[in-house]
């Protein structure tokens, strides 16, 4: 029993990292007034690019860097469309998710000739046995704390939040709203890109077709539940990381006790847990009215 709890907690700490990076990034983006629901697409694209780079260079840290750069480019695209072209942010995000999925799978098949998964690539090693702790765990925690400090305790953070609450007032304060929103979108997408790369080089060790598995949207749920607060996103990410861990752990455990059961079909039903968990928690615990007031609306200078 104790063993189970330790191993579940350890798994949860592994699974929470991409959720934490993506949700903290999205909080920065949304606090400036831009919604990016293309997180899912960024996760899958950066996971693919980082597996490609790690496969050819054998260096997982270069893979992380490549993931960050893919996120950065995606953020530049989304920021340009949302801020300067005044596009519909939700539609741009939905389009990006479909595009990123298509292009990543195209790349997967084109590079390795395989429809389901890439070969294994080298990984960033865990430490802290018997627990599995990735060096990215303290990094992600630190990023969350730094973002909290930046947003709520510095004047540039205040200016960023002003862009999301009342862009006209921010402009009057002398803030370049358009540039601030673009910057916040790029930062958010870059953090998400690191999260996507981590799924490959820090966790799974290969790229698979359904590697992101809705994590981008789970991160969006964490953003709303945390009340747009990066420090609280740590707790949210742990809870949903825990659900993720349970959904992978239980079918294996049950099959050990009862070997007659088919693991594949058993695992299908347990894979529902994280999504059902999000649905229930969001429906019961979300408090409305805390979103940045100008969220999702393009700012038009007079």
């Amino acid at each position, binding site marked *: 029993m104790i063993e189970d709890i330790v191993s579940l907690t350890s798994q949860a700490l592994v699974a929470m990292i991409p959720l934490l990076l993506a949700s903290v990034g999205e909080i920065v983006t949304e606090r400036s007034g831009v919604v990016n629901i293309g997180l899912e697409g960024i996760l899958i694209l950066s996971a693919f690019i980082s597996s490609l780079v790690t496969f050819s260079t054998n260096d997982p840290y270069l893979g992380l860097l490549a993931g960050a750069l893919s996120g950065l480019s995606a953020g530049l695209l989304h920021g340009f469309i949302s801020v300067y072209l005044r596009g519909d942010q939700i539609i741009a995000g939905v*389009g990006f*998710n*479909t595009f990123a999925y*298509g292009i990543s*799978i*195209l790349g997967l098949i084109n590079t390795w000739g395989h429809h389901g998964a890439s070969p294994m690539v080298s990984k960033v090693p865990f430490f802290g046995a018997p627990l599995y702790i990735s060096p990215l765990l303290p990094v992600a925690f630190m990023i969350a704390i730094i973002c909290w400090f930046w947003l709520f305790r510095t004047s540039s953070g205040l200016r960023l939040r002003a862009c999301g609450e009342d862009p006209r007032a921010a402009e009057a304060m002398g803030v370049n709203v358009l540039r601030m929103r673009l910057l916040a979108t790029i930062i958010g997408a870059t953090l998400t890109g690191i999260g996507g790369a981590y799924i490959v080089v820090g966790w799974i060790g290969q790229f698979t077709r359904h590697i992101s598995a809705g994590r981008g949207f789970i991160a*969006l749920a964490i953003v709303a539940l945390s009340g747009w607060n990066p420090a609280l996103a740590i707790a949210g990410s742990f809870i949903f990381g825990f659900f993720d861990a349970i959904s992978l752990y239980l079918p294996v455990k049950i099959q050990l006790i009862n070997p007659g059961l088919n693991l594949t079909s058993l695992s299908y039903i347990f894979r529902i847990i994280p*999504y059902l968990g999000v649905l229930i928690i969001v*429906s019961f615990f979300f408090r409305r009215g805390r979103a940045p007031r100008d969220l999702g609306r393009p700012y038009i200078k007079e």
Partner: protein
Amino acid sequence: MRKVILEVSLSIILSFLIGYTTLILMGYDATKVFSIVIREGLSNPTYLMIRSTPLILTALAFSIPSLVGVFNIGGEGQFYLGALSSLLIAHITGNSLLSIITGMAAGGLLSVLIAVIKVKRGVNEVVTSIMFNWIIYFSLLYLISTYLFDPLMPYQSISVPKTARIDYLIVHIQIPAIFPIAVLTSLVMYFLLYHSALGYKMRVVGISPKAARYAGFDPESSIILSMLIGGAMGGLGGSLLILGHTHAIDSTMSGLYGMGFAGIGAGLLGRNNPIGIILSSIFLSMLIIGGEAAELRARVPTELADALIGMIVIVLSAPYIVRLVRVRR
């Protein structure tokens, strides 16, 4: 009208250009691939009609709530649920009409649940929609692999009995009956949205909830109603595909996967107008069928179609791009 045509054609041209460049970078003969996509996509009108049918309906599932300002990206789940419940009822009763009604009801109920969570709890429909999509996806995989598989063909589910299948409307010119059903439904939706009091209310809510409330319309009931209709469309799509074409669900669900998401592209490309949607669904189905042919003939993965559709949607998200082009001219 001219602006709409300009936007739509620009989005298609830009996405083709990007797709073309990507293919060349990946080392394919891009000209050959695109000529296969277009030629093979149009080579079999019957098959094109069959494939367009579910797309028209999942596009309506997205577009009808979209006119009210709700983002139903749960079309994928509503489509799966429609297919599953239709299959079960068809298997039990052998009656296609009962089966269609059940499919629509199942899709509608699911989307109403999403709408109620949005209205009552303030939760963004995008998040709940996606969670439901995954829950239903894995539930279906579980049900098909444990309870509903065909003992003779374990890689697929039990199938629709002969009596409940929907066949050709006119056999000798090969028009599958499901296609006119989808087109007719789309026309009915057009009149509902643009020529009825109900549709007027819904559109006012979409443009300005404040104005709607001032005029005495209740935005919340419009939101729920639009989601009910949208979800029923998604369910109908799943229902028609299974009764009229696949007759069973394969154990990896590859025959259903992605249809709801492609519907979002079709809805946007059709400018959320039911008549435009008929045309855009036929166009995107051509891309999808052509993409499948390109896989066989030029070994280009079918996901090319996803990349192209995604790019079309990205360009359509920013009508301002068109203005940039105009200024330059």
